[in-house]
């Protein structure tokens, strides 16, 4: 476990993330592929053809290579936090050149683009301490056509599960074709306004064929997955099916007066990758494979 290993692994993760979808997302999309002649079937076939061609040619599947967001889960390890953070940033520099990544950092008012993915507040790295003797680095290269459709609802606690479902439905319907459905939804429930949104994004990194370990949250996931899949917005908002291929819920306890609900809308390109660095020097990487 050293800086060089972390740097090269992060570069490889980002490079892979933009070129190949994680197996859960890829197979969920592939399952929707039919030889039908409806506009929805054509859209899904086009998406799959594009994915395959990107993989084959080693080209990022979408021109919006997103904003790379990182989660650093830092355990009891002999390398300093500062060194890990700097290795992540160096890995991003390498990936930007190798993949390449589109320079997606502009000043919010002047819109000045310096031609890279750095700038005030970027890259965003969420740091969480963990107990084990390892480091985990997760990344999501988040496209912003979908990010723009994300929403926060500060619901009344009495709104309950129905209120949460209503809010998620409303967010998906309002978004229409803008976020590039078929969608994956990350839903963050509880915490504070900011934690609900952070949980919503983090939810997008869990495979969409898994469930939250809390039974009530797992039930909500099952209900939202079943109830939102075929609401008719359809691939690219052009009608038909599917609209939503995945819904993951993450939660935190909250204030008695509050029921924050964050919905992070993710296009079909749910491009995550995760690496675990262990004390014996081994590194395990999950995500898309090319």
């Amino acid at each position, binding site marked *: 476990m050293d800086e060089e290993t972390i740097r090269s692994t992060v570069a490889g993760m980002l490079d892979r993330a933009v070129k190949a979808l994680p197996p859960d997302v890829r197979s969920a999309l592939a399952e929707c592929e039919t030889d039908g002649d409806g506009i929805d079937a054509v859209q899904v076939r086009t998406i799959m053809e594009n994915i395959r061609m990107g993989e084959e040619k080693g080209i990022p599947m979408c021109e919006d290579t997103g904003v790379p967001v990182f989660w650093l889960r830092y355990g009891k390890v002999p390398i300093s936090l500062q060194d890990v953070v700097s290795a992540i940033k160096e890995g991003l520099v390498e990936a930007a050149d190798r993949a390449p990544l*589109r320079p997606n950092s502009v000043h919010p008012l002047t819109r000045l683009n310096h*031609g890279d993915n750095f700038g005030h507040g970027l890259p965003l790295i969420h740091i969480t301490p963990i107990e084990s003797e390892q480091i985990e680095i997760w990344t999501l290269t988040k496209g912003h056509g979908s990010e723009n459709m994300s929403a926060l609802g500060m619901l009344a606690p009495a709104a309950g599960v129905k209120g949460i479902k209503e809010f998620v439905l409303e967010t998906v319907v309002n978004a229409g074709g803008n976020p590039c459905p078929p969608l994956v939804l990350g839903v963050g429930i509880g915490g504070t306004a900011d934690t609900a949104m952070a949980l919503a994004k983090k939810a997008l990194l869990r495979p969409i064929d898994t469930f939250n370990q809390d039974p009530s949250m797992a039930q909500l996931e099952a209900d939202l997955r079943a109830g939102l899949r075929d609401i008719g917005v359809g691939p690219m908002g052009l009608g038909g099916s599917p609209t939503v291929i995945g819904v993951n819920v993450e939660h935190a306890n909250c204030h008695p007066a509050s029921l924050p609900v964050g919905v992070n809308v993710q296009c079909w390109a749910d491009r995550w990758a995760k690496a675990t660095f262990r004390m014996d020097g081994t590194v395990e990487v999950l995500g898309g494979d090319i």
Partner: protein
Amino acid sequence: MTDEVKRLTTPLSEEEARDLRIGDLVSFTGVVYTLRDQGHLRAMEQEVPVDLKGALVFHCGPLVKETSDGWEVLAAGPTTSIRMEGLEREFIERFRPGALMGKGGMGQRTSEALQEFGAVYLAWTGGAAVLAAEAIRSAEVYWLDLGTPEALWVFHVEDLGPVVVAMDSHGGNLYKEVRDKVERDMPAIRAGLGI
């Protein structure tokens, strides 16, 4: 909707644009210009270095690589068009493009401008960026100071498509049809969610 792909060359005449109906599939050979948020703003303020009359304007911020031979366009899918809604009517009125291409559709004011000036809105599958780049033979760029995603790119394309006509010059709007249907189905959708 017909399965036959209409092969068009740019620029489009008003007659060609008015001949298209929602659901038609079209492909293009010729020139495509990219303009998104900052490009639209600048086009309304400064002289535009290209002729947009009858042009195919693509809401797109491509992924490019500069090589010794010039610019290589690696991926060039559509960006969300509704962001340009605030300026699009005035843009259409001033420059008279023949077609806009993007994703997600546009609003009522743009729909009215398409009808008034004879133009269409085309839906390129969002994220299908490698497929789009396949049709690009060469590229030039203006306004690079805006950064590569926002610059005005000129793509010389061969058989770009097929792409769906999603809004036409007769008031047809696939997105609106879909939205209206979802709205009508809402009681069943809500029941399905247990609301």
